């Protein structure tokens, strides 16, 4: 901090911005433990009744389990497809490689609303609106660019001489890949699997279009509850949503850190 000009004021400003970043979201936690049956600040007393509803009410429970299922499949699919794509795009030598690798990231740039309605139109044609497989496909599209970027970065940062050494010492290309390349990029791949999981777990806009009243994810139920009558179960569900995300994020960051040491 010594080198920063006007440091006192700057430090205060940055502390306030940090509070602005973190504090507002935290109000859902005390709200979820309220005894009252209204979602209103300040919370009254302490009770776990809204968490009980979350686990006991079939609508909430099914949505939670569906979200987990979809997020796990998405993590698996996006990581498998994304890792191979990243390998192909970083190592392949073909015309238009730069263009294709930029285009493969376009789901990041295209507004999610557009992806959502387009996917909905196609899913209506294919008859897969309201299916788990459809949700997984749609979420994999959104998660894929993240995996490609993350795996590409770890592929670029490792020393390819290690592979050349293995090859020159007589290992075949396949065993070099599985015994040298894969273990070296594994932390990056693991981190991107977790990022793909979070992407699906939190996703709402596309899910609003491709779910139906039977097959719904947790964010969709929260969103619908927010628009109709609200009871504090929403706060409990929101807390659960963030808790899972934070856990996955922590593991992902730890995995990535493993990559650097």
């Amino acid at each position, binding site marked *: *901090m010594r*080198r*920063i*000009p006007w440091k006192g004021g*700057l430090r205060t400003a*940055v502390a306030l*911005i*940090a509070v602005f*970043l*973190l504090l*507002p*979201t*935290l*109000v*859902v936690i005390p709200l979820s433990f309220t005894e009252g049956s209204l*979602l*209103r600040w300040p919370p009254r007393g302490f009770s776990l009744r809204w968490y009980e509803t979350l686990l006991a009410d079939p609508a909430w429970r099914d949505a939670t389990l569906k979200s987990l299922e979809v997020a796990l499949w998405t993590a698996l699919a996006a990581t498998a497809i*994304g890792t191979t*794509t990243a390998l*192909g795009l*970083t*190592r*392949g*030598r*073909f015309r238009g*490689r730069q263009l*294709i690798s930029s285009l*493969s*990231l376009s*789901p990041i*740039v*295209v*507004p999610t*609303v*557009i*992806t959502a*309605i*387009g996917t*909905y*139109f*196609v899913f209506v044609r294919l008859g897969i609106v309201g299916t788990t497989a459809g949700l997984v496909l749609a979420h*994999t*599209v959104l998660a*894929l*660019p993240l995996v490609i970027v993350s795996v590409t970065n770890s592929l*670029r940062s490792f020393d390819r*001489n290690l592979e*050349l*050494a293995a*090859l*020159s010492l007589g290992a075949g290309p396949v065993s070099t890949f599985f015994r040298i390349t894969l273990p070296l990029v594994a932390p990056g791949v693991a981190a991107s699997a977790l990022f793909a999981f979070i992407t699906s777990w*939190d996703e709402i806009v596309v899910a609003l279009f491709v779910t139906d009243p039977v097959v719904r994810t947790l964010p969709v139920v929260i*969103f619908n509850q*927010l628009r109709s009558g609200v009871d504090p179960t929403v706060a409990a569900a*929101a807390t659960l949503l*963030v808790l899972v*995300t*934070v856990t996955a*994020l922590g593991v992902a*960051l730890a995995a990535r850190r493993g990559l650097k040491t």
Partner: protein
Amino acid sequence: MAEAVIRPNDPPDAPTVAAASGSAAASTVSTVSTVRTARTARRVPGWGLLAVPGIAFLLLFFGWPIADMAILSLTEPSPANYAVFAESPVYRDAYVTTFLVAVVTTGTCLLLGYPYAYVMHASGRRLALVLGFFVLLPFWSSILVRTFAWSVWLQDSGIVNTALMSAGVIDEPLPLIRNALGTTIGMTHVLLPFMVLSLYAGMRRIDPDLTRAAKSLGASPLTAFRRVFLPLSKAGIYAGSLIVFVISLGFYLTPAILGDPGEPLVGQLIVEQVSGQLEFGVGGALGVVLLVSTLVIVGAGTRLVDLRTVMGYEE
């Protein structure tokens, strides 16, 4: 296949293993091994083939949806869908409001994000880690939950109004929600982490010797910042502003919860047309206009900044 041949910059790296042994003979070994590697590499089928499934997947489940939306906008029932812009001011107004909200959000994010990223960059490792954590946590947390939380703060009986009224500052609750103010506050909160991360990435690419040189040549810290550091951080400013602006344009969730239902943004109109009115054609037309404006802005932005770094590629 020409592409399987080792690139010219690979062989000079190859002797590293051999060079470690430090003998003249080693360099001969390394030459042999390079030749053998080249031969092995030639037998490996092109790495490029590995990209095929991913590209095919994206074409099918991302390319087709976008194309389908464009086709439906022209055929469901006819290109007259685009006439809605001429017929009803609602649509034009929505685009104007969306644009204004995006400009204000981007400006606010830049104003809050720059000092934050700067302190993150200039401070020691531990503080930088803490500040980074404060950004990554909201960055990855559910936008839905964060928007919901803001409604608890901003509504008429919410935390802010209750506090102000019990303190006697105001008698009537301030209108903080169900209007453009609520939308802008929520979107600023959601998008600030994007801005900070872009700015920080840009600042890390600046050579620290340059500001040090300015100071050793007699510039005050403030001058060194203004004349050297600030201009060099432009790339991050462009990248962050571009990404925040573009995401703002297509936002649906936050305006739907915190915004004025009577003055919808473009994202809300599109959702309303498709899932409310079942007007796939009109919804498609609105989507195409939003997509084209987004791509034009991104295209213009790539003149100022390398899009690949905006999307998170490290150099």
